[in-house]
């Protein structure tokens, strides 16, 4: 009942047009502010979604899982390379082992630093290999999926099904390490080459698995490099093993 009376007063007392225009100005200002806010939000959202590193990997990300597991994998390669250097005088095997130990030690440090920069714990937040059971970028789950996405390896191998908490591919067992520990000379060389070929094949499988799952630039560059160099080392080790058979 009050509204018509007020409208009536607005018209008759001459304040109406003034009041109407001030409320229209207020509405315009609100609309302007909302428009600017929405444009900004859309811009930020688009920028974030389209950038190559959409988000910093979190503790349960495939990137963090890869960085933790691959450190463990590399640490064992360093251990075996250092062992064979103490168990043979052969300069060819010793210099290859020297190269592997320092390369993989440096790479483990890179992955360590990523986790620090992502501000996630070094300690796993979920069982080993869980990240390898996550869907790939094209929505696959990895089992019976042909990878070799790195291209450099040239050998697209069917990926075995992995389970959370499973053993990493290519890791030597305690018994195999004990055998290497007690071997000397050419026996140690053969054992080292055999174990390290399997170790590298497993490493490439894990690198392929992260290439199929991550869009993070640094991680992809790292994994692609790993696939390429470890494949060339496998070829070299196979030739060296044949010479020693």
């Amino acid at each position, binding site marked *: 009942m009050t509204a*018509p009376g007020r409208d009536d007063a607005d018209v008759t007392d001459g304040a109406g047009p003034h009041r109407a225009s001030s409320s229209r100005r207020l509405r315009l200002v609100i609309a302007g502010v*909302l428009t600017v*806010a929405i444009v900004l939000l859309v811009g930020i959202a688009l920028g974030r979604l389209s950038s190559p590193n959409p*988000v910093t990997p*979190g503790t349960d990300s495939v990137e963090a899982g890869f960085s933790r597991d691959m450190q463990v994998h590399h640490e064992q390669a360093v*251990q075996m390379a250092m062992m064979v250097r103490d168990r043979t005088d052969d300069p060819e095997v010793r210099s290859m082992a020297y190269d592997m130990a320092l390369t993989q030690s440096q790479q483990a440090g890179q992955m*360590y630093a990523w986790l620090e920069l992502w501000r996630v714990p070094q300690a796993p*937040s979920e069982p080993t290999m869980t990240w390898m059971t996550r869907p790939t970028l094209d929505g696959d789950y990895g089992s019976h999926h042909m990878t070799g996405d790195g291209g450099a390896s040239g050998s697209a191998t069917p990926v075995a099904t992995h389970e959370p908490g499973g053993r990493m591919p290519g890791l030597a067992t305690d018994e195999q390490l004990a055998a290497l520990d007690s071997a000397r000379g050419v026996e140690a060389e053969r054992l080292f080459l055999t174990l390290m070929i399997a170790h590298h094949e497993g490493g490439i499988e894990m690198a392929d698995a992260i290439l199929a799952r991550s869009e993070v630039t640094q991680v992809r560059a790292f994994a692609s490099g790993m696939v390429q160099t470890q494949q060339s080392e496998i070829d070299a080790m196979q030739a060296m093993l044949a010479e020693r058979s």
Partner: protein
Amino acid sequence: MADDKPTVKQQRDARRQEKVAELKRQQARAKRNRTIGIVTASVAGAAAIALVVTFVVTSGQPRQDPQAIEIDGVKTYSDLTANHVGGSVDYAMTPPAGGDHNQIWLNCGVYTEPVPNENAVHDLEHGAVWFTYDPEQVSESEIEALRDFAPDTYAVVSPYEGLDSPMYVSAWGAQLPFANVTDDEATVSDFVTKYWKSTNAPEPGAPCTGGVDGTGKIA
């Protein structure tokens, strides 16, 4: 006069009707404008909320800096020295949680016999955690559970006689007494998350293999 009066009244009526019609048109216009305003504002508001929600959802899980984890009952030690020394060292705490140590580190793993403090402390310097249990205060199944719980790398599990708690987990500059890994799983897990291979240690990631084995290494 009798003829004029109705005419004036009629004119007045006409003007009033004109005015009423004008008022109604204005009211209708105002109402329409208000509706447009409300609809526009609602749509814009809903869009803004939707964008904020999308933004929050795509920004992933909230991260907690491992260094910010608070652990009940943890004891920390700062200003530890880290010299390589021969012979035995008198440590400020039992079991040791950092300090001077032997130049050769202990190989990480599971031991059934006590390990030398001086070699084990070198592991802590490299970022390992050391689980110790007092054989007098724990059961065989509690020891088994502890061995299963310990990380596969950068961890030592060994008996330690005369502890003031059934079990301890130690890292460089920090340690936590606890009863067993079943009852205290959350706290001990937090300790591992915060201190395993952490930058609190002077040389995290330095080797925990290729050193010296203690007696009774089973894994």
